[in-house]
């Protein structure tokens, strides 16, 4: 279920980011976590241990459960990163791959 945006409505053509390739409108000032949750995304990642689906828990940067991949940088805390137009966000599936280089 998505979230309701309480602040007075802004014009329809707000900035967009891309989540799993599809465009997703957000409001300036929202974090990536906020933007995804507002759009109804609940599962942000699959754990590297069991593959279980997870979403944000603490929303204050402590729990590392809202990890996503942002513009090719894996394991980013969605709740601590401000949403930016054009950002490419993907679910974090398992362990990070960006640090594995050519060896992955």
């Amino acid at each position, binding site marked *: *279920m*998505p*979230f*309701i*945006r*309480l*602040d*007075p409505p802004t014009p329809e053509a707000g900035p967009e980011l891309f989540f799993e390739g599809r465009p997703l409108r957000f*409001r300036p*000032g*929202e*974090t990536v976590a*906020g933007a995804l*949750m*507002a759009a109804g995304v*609940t*599962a*942000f990642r699959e*754990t590297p*241990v*069991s593959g*279980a*689906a*997870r*979403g*944000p*828990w*603490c*929303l*204050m*940067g*402590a*729990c*590392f*459960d809202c990890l996503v991949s942002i513009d090719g940088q894996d*394991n980013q*805390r969605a*709740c*601590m990163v*401000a949403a930016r137009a054009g950002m490419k966000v993907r679910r974090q599936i398992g362990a990070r791959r960006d*640090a594995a280089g050519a060896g992955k």
Partner: protein
Amino acid sequence: MSRWDAIVIGAGPAGIGGASLLAERGARVLLVDETPGPGGQIWRGIETVPESRAAILGPDYRAGAAEVARLRASGATLAFSTEAWRVEPDGTVWLRDAGGLRREAARHLLVATGAMERPVPLPGWTLPGVTTIGGLQILLKREGLLPRGPLALVGTGPLVYLYAAQCLTAGKRDLVLVDTARPGAMLAALPHLPRALLGHGPAYLAKGAGLLWQLRRAGIAVHTNARQIGIEPDGDGGLVLRFLGRGRHRLRLSRIGLHEGVIPETHLLRSLGCRMLWSAAAVAFHPARDRDLCSSLGHVHVAGDAGGVGGAMVALLEGRIAAMAILERLGHQVDPLLVSATRRARRAHLAARPLIERLYRPAPELLTPPDEVVACRCEEVRCGEIRASLAAGAAGPNQLKAFLRCGMGPCQGRICGPTLAQLTARIRGVTMEEAGWLTVRPPLRPVSVGEIAALASEEP
């Protein structure tokens, strides 16, 4: 690199109160906070919040604006979006911001890292769609987001009622409260009522009563004495909440918030080696502090919820008390009357605290959860494995970490730490102090290998 008179870590009420006063009296102060602006969790986004959102958040929230304005005018150097990732006992503080890593040094540290929500390990607490109630409130404060669809707020503590009331003010009606406080809590709290009627106690009690009345008037369902709580996916993108209250309940929901009170955020203090004490009343560790709010390390003061949860006003006043103590040590003149008046004001704001602590005690089953419950969210270690390891002779949290990996993940044991200590104490039959705590290792905040590599002064 110049040396600061004081570095204040955390820009919530305590850090704001401390840094403002220090700077106003001419001390060289650096205030750092990982969020983009002052306010901490309680006054989060206070400088940028639209009026409509501030109206929902209420007068206690708005009260932050004046203190933040005072901070801005004080002359303190402010570093936001800046994380203290390592603090060394000699007053060295390593910071990380958009520009990379850097080192600062100070004669005194004022630690004002605030509180964190107590973990709520119960069956299903790791499912997507289940967050802390504090997390939901952050979404409201920071981003103006309110959950759509049926929402259950499960747990105990003032924040449950405050957030519920804020939901109501924002127009949300599809809301249910599932209170986990035990019926005996009221009775246990009663002896602390007389003290709670002193000082500012009545104002706190009136505030609480006001919230309850607001919920009742709106006809919000409140289930009391909830036990055997479990959450499952409903197979359709939603959640099912089961619990035993007055009879068995099964609720279909789109989102669930959990909350069992807040505890001091002591990660940084533990990394410094500050002595910790267990509070049975608060069911939490807090740093040992003297009258001046100085920790067991002479140049480390602790103010606000990090020293023991007391709320925003107490934190603000503690920030000032610590600031005055630091000013005195720096050789500044401090008016003793002002010191004693501030101490008195703090005590007045703490009058209702013992009552509140006993009214909102976390349920025992959440402190030592059933075997199937995941205790360590990062490494997915279940309470049953922890129990088995302890029964086989594991000496405490650090051995559990070594053998089971609980506490080894990216959150560094912040979430599972309390559960590991509780299970150790319970199974080994020792006190919480004897049970011990996960040794805190740097970095305290995430830092990349590349960022640290750039600090190497020479070719290896």
